[in-house]
């Protein structure tokens, strides 16, 4: 199957700290690709590079056939991003938020209206379109946030922890919706700490640790690699690969020593 994302020898350094260390992988058109890893492993940095929000230090990254550095605008026309932080303005209504982002993506007002109405209805948010986003619950905000990312009807949708802090009902709705989008041909890159979510949704999973890809395969193949447990889950696979020690991270800038030992408690630099 055709690859929509090609990453070759990607490295991202913040001064002395290597956040992403020479990784390569491809994402095929139409798949749900789970991108997992402990805190500070390099997931968000990789996603930010793929979505043109960060520049790679070295390596080649192509999204929808366009180079993320040289053809950033073309890449932006083919992707949607649901980041960890909700990208909406509290003092604007749901509709105003969506119109604003739609216009920034150079969509005609008529098309914005048509798509907004379609998705609002699908995610049960139609009656709240004229309410201020600041008054919404996290689940309501996230549903509008997803619609925002879908306004351009992107070929690839990136989701970073899309169900974090949501109730089971909204989580279920979003999972069903993502499957539905995928069945219509949208490629989905999903970053999550929820192993069950990754297991249920992903066709293939990449586990990133210490900036390197530690494993990349289908969920079943990964499970088969765990020998000690009779019926392993994706969580068992994850712990087997990344270890059981807690990965504490600091948000402030920390320069790591050059003799940093992999696997030891690790500090990371916040990605801007």
């Amino acid at each position, binding site marked *: 199957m055709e690859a929509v994302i090609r990453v070759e020898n990607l490295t991202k350094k913040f001064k002395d700290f290597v956040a992403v260390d020479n990784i390569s992988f491809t994402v095929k058109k139409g798949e749900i690709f789970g991108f997992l890893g402990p805190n500070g492993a390099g997931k968000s940095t990789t996603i930010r590079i793929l979505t043109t*929000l960060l520049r790679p230090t070295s390596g080649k990254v192509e999204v929808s056939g366009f180079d993320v550095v040289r053809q950033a605008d073309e890449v*932006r026309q083919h992707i949607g*991003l649901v980041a960890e932080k909700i*990208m*909406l*303005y509290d*003092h604007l209504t749901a509709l105003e938020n969506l119109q604003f982002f739609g216009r*920034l993506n150079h969509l005609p007002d008529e098309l914005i209206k048509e798509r907004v109405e379609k998705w609002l209805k699908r995610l049960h948010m139609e009656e709240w379109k004229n309410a201020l986003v600041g008054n919404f619950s996290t689940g309501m905000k996230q549903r509008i946030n997803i619609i925002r990312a879908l306004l351009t009807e992107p070929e690839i949708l990136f989701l970073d922890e899309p169900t974090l802090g949501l109730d089971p009902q909204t989580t279920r709705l979003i999972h069903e919706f993502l499957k539905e989008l995928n069945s219509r041909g949208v490629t989905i890159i999903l970053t999550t700490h929820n192993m069950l979510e990754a297991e249920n949704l992903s066709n293939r999973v990449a586990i990133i640790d210490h900036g390197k890809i530690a494993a990349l395969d289908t969920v079943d193949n990964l499970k088969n690699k765990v020998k000690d447990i009779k019926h392993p889950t994706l969580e068992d696979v994850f712990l087997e690969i990344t270890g059981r020690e807690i990965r504490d991270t600091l948000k402030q800038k920390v320069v790591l020593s050059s003799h940093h030992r992999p696997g030891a408690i690790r500090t990371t630099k916040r990605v*801007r």
Partner: protein
Amino acid sequence: MGRIIKDTFEITKKDLKEFTRDRLRLATFFIMPIFMMILVGFIFPNQNSLKNIPLGIAIDDQGKIGERLNKVFGELKGENDVKIFEMKKYKGLDEIKDGIKKQEINGGIFIPGDFSKNISENKQTDIVIIQDQSNPQISALVTQTVIKIIEGFGQSLGNQKLNAIFIRWPNFKKYSPQAFITPILTKLEGIVPGSTNYFEFMAPGIMVMVVMTAVLTGLAASISREKEQGTLDGILIAPINRLAIILGKALAQSVRGIVQGIIVLILAILLFGVRVYGNLLLVLLVVLLGVFSFVGLGILVSAIASEQETATQLLFMFQLPMLFLSGVFFPIQQMPQFMQYIAHLLPLTYAVSAMRKVIILGAGIADIKNEILILLVFGFITLVISVPTFKRIITR
């Protein structure tokens, strides 16, 4: 280009809409200039603002002239028919000094025992003015006014005396006694009618200062807030030119800055009687140029600072010295030479100078061409540095 302009306006519109919906920010926006003007306008005194100033007087004089002088002081009225001095009688020089120490009075006059006698005998006589050194500003005003009154009173006495002499000497009839007492009369002329008080000196400076604060702090806060909330990523992921983001945000802040500047001007005119002798459009042009010269700095700070708090701290460090060095509150000419050199490197200095010339002196565009040129150059240089820095930093 057309697309950049469209995207710029889209961001400006969004920023302003968001701002007008935030009640707290809106309230601060209006209250800040009002508060600033009222505070400054009422605190800093001018000549006319001496009202009911408690002034001590001790009269040892055996004659009646001392008492007449006291009456003159007591009856002196200023603006709105309000008495300038509240006279309080004391028994002697030491008691007046005690009164100042207790802050019962803002100064005092001691009239010695031989005051009337000396005047009657055509001898020079003394009056002692006691100053309140704890309050130099009021003290200077009070002393100046008291000296003026005493001199006027003395001249009137001299006039009476010479009149009496001239009547007796027919050869002198053709002369005016006043020409002997004050042979030289000074005439004051200004560029515009009337005299300027301290508040009129400050009002243009405050106007520019408010605009500068709105643009610098507002721009940095706006960008840092979006960074923190994550909404900046939503804008950055759209296929738009980064220049449109900066311009859109800068334009929104400029609109706010201009509105605040206009509020300050209206308050200055309505509440404190500041007169604008220059063209109002020229006032607006200076505001716009001020905004243009500060925008680059605002962009630079917001690019460097990752959080709102850092941006505010960085700006505070920069703004505070600028306020004191740029002649907003004190004339630059009074500063030490090295500070004057620094003042001439700051854009606020030129914006304040241009605004003062237009508002107070009624200057035209040709009179402020140097200031206009410097503000344009400053704005251009800072934008040339800050725009690529912003672009580089947000996707580094």
